[in-house]
């Protein structure tokens, strides 16, 4: 392959364009960073559009075909919404001077985009690891010891996912002789679990934050800067959702995993005081809905999962942005320290409520037009999964639909009277809010992007029964909230740290590692003592024999040697006579 064609392979790739833009941000004056990022995002989006559906950047490497860009209906949905999310984040953080964050603001989404566009496992692995490495700069951005330690934990877990992916890919290649990244499936024709598939499944599971593998999200994301948390909230988990949709659509295990994901974060979010952390639990819960849709694997539920991922990226970002704006003005995102901000931040409040209505899937908002596909799919699977998703929908309303706006802008009056959010933040939130309503009212452009056009053409979200069922569920859940508040049974927020699975590696795990390091040192010292003692004794003996004073180094008199020579010669003479 010639150098020029290799160069064109790279420069055709929107992810590479964004990465080059990220490097430009490091090399150019800081005040130009916002403009550069926005222009580069626009160029990348234009490149994506001009390429259209198809495979690009295909070349042979050691006899294997590498497809660096695969734009098909599945990858296109994610690629499009990733560009929207990047643009919103750049606008939101307009004027950000920190070079490391500016770099990561483009380089990390670039890596996630590269992963989404990857047509083979080698390309996927490279971008998978790039996403881990570039995103950790956002966790480290505040520059405190807590964020450093958290960033290291985050990096270790993300790299573990990458290592598992690599191991899985090697096993997969041994089994199939191919690096093509298509449907894998967890089981073979006999129903037995395939080892390679299981390892890849786990790698995807870590990044999509399966239950018990989820806590890196809550550990790392809320410790980042205001804009950093928003960027982090979008890409890693959605790249993993894409990867599961590509590789494991129709895997029943995902239905149960996803159902658990929709439920348990609700309870942790209920008792969590840090509203940004509440939203990280919301990420787990929302990804759970997508994973259920992927697991069901019908055309409708896959359309639902992918469409819901698209909408979720916008309204979840909007909620993070609203809480971030309150934090920007007040210095805190804790429910106990916020409240009453509606008086002076009415626009932020309005945008936040639009995000809340969208995530709760109220008719007329973005969540409603795609979530129904997943819930209907669950009903087709079994009643328990269906009831679980309905229960989880009430939970979403509780922690994301009500708790976030209520404790930020209403609840008890904190006495804080901050200014309205800065104009760039308002613009970003305003665009996200318009998109949330726009998708809800007029979902056709989103539907046009979904993978199965035949299925979606026959889907009408605004049927009477769908609207009535959803309104009953949500309105009566709000009524429950009002009743609990009026009778003072709704629990007050309490400043606290709530233990989750990260406790295992942060406390006993850490203690075990500390103990293991100490024990290893003691054993090493003891072994070295034994070894060096023996060595010393041996050297002493050698010295005794061969040293200057040793027996073997003694000088012998010449007469003594002559006597023994004569004896030896006499012995030889006697022998020769006898012979």
């Amino acid at each position, binding site marked *: 392959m010639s150098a020029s064609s290799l160069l064109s392979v790279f420069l055709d790739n929107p992810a590479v364009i964004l990465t080059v833009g990220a490097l430009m941000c490091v090399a150019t004056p800081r005040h130009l960073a916002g403009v550069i990022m926005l222009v580069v995002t626009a160029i990348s989006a234009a490149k994506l559009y001009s390429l259209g559906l198809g495979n690009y950047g295909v070349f042979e490497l050691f006899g294997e075909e590498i497809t660096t860009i695969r734009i098909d209906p599945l990858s296109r949905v994610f690629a499009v919404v990733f560009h929207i999310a990047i643009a919103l984040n750049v606008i939101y*953080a307009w004027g950000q001077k*920190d070079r490391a964050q500016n770099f990561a603001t483009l380089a990390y989404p670039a890596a996630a985009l590269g992963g989404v566009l990857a047509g083979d496992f080698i390309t996927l692995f490279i971008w998978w690891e790039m996403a881990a490495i570039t995103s950790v700069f956002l966790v480290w951005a505040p520059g405190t010891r*807590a964020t450093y330690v958290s960033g290291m934990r985050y990096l270790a877990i993300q790299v573990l996912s990458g290592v598992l992916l690599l191991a899985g890919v090697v096993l997969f290649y041994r089994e199939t002789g191919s690096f093509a990244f298509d449907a894998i499936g967890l089981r073979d024709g006999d129903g037995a679990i395939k080892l390679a598939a299981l390892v890849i499944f786990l790698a995807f599971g870590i990044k999509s934050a399966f239950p018990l593998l989820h806590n890196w999200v809550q550990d790392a994301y809320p410790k980042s800067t205001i804009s950093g948390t928003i960027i982090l909230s979008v890409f890693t988990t959605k790249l993993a959702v894409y990867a599961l949709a590509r590789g494991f659509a129709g895997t029943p295990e995902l239905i149960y995993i996803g159902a658990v994901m929709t439920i348990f974060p*609700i*309870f*942790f979010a*209920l*008792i969590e005081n840090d509203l940004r952390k509440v939203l990280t639990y919301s990420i787990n819960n929302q990804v759970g809905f997508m994973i259920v849709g992927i697991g069901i694997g019908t055309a409708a539920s896959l359309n639902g999962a992918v469409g819901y991922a698209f909408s979720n990226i916008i309204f979840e970002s909007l909620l993070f942005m609203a809480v971030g704006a309150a*934090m*920007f*003005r*007040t*210095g805190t995102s804790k429910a106990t320290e916020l409240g*009453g901000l*509606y*008086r002076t931040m009415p626009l932020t409040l309005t945008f936040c409520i639009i995000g809340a209505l969208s995530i709760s899937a109220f008719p007329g908002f973005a969540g409603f037009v795609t979530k129904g596909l997943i819930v209907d799919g669950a009903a*087709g699977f079994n*009643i328990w999964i*269906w009831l679980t998703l*309905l*229960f989880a929908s*009430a939970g979403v*309303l*509780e922690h994301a639909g009500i708790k976030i706006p209520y404790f930020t802008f*209403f609840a008890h*009056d*904190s*006495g*804080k*009277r*901050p*200014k309205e959010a*800065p104009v760039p933040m308002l613009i970003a939130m305003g665009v996200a809010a318009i998109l949330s309503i726009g998708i809800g009212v007029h979902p056709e452009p989103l539907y046009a992007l979904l993978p199965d056009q035949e299925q979606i053409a026959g889907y009408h979200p605004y049927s*009477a*029964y*769908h609207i*009535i*069922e959803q*309104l*009953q*569920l*949500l*309105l*009566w*859940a*709000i*009524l*429950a*909230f*009002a009743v*609990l508040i009026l009778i003072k*049974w709704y*629990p007050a927020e*309490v400043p*606290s*740290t*709530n*233990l989750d699975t990260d406790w295992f590696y*942060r406390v006993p795990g*850490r203690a075990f590692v500390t103990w293991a390091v100490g024990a290893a040192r003691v054993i090493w010292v003891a072994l070295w003592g034994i070894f060096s003692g023996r060595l010393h004794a041996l050297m002493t003996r050698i010295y005794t024999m061969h040293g200057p004073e040793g027996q073997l180094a003694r000088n012998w008199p010449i007469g003594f040697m002559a006597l023994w020579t004569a004896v030896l010669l006499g012995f030889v003479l006697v022998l020769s006579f006898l012979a």
Partner: protein
Amino acid sequence: MSDHDQNHGKPDDGGWADNPIFIRAFLGLLIISCIAAAAAGLNAAWHNPHPHFAIEGVPAFFAIYGFGAFVFIVLVGQHLRKLVGRKEEYYDERE
């Protein structure tokens, strides 16, 4: 990236959301909406034409389920705090 620009006002200095008239109007509207949504469920013509389960045909099933789920989450979920709640500095003291 932060700007702790806060002017402290007097607590409860008469914002619109703290006005009893607003609160009453909001609650009234909510109750009317809830009743309307439940009542709409009584009309069989507006039921799912292809229900998966018989329970979908129960009038106001979704209203009862939504209410019950919310109450359950709040009343049961808060006890999780007893199991996993620790003081704020818990990890600061250990890392």
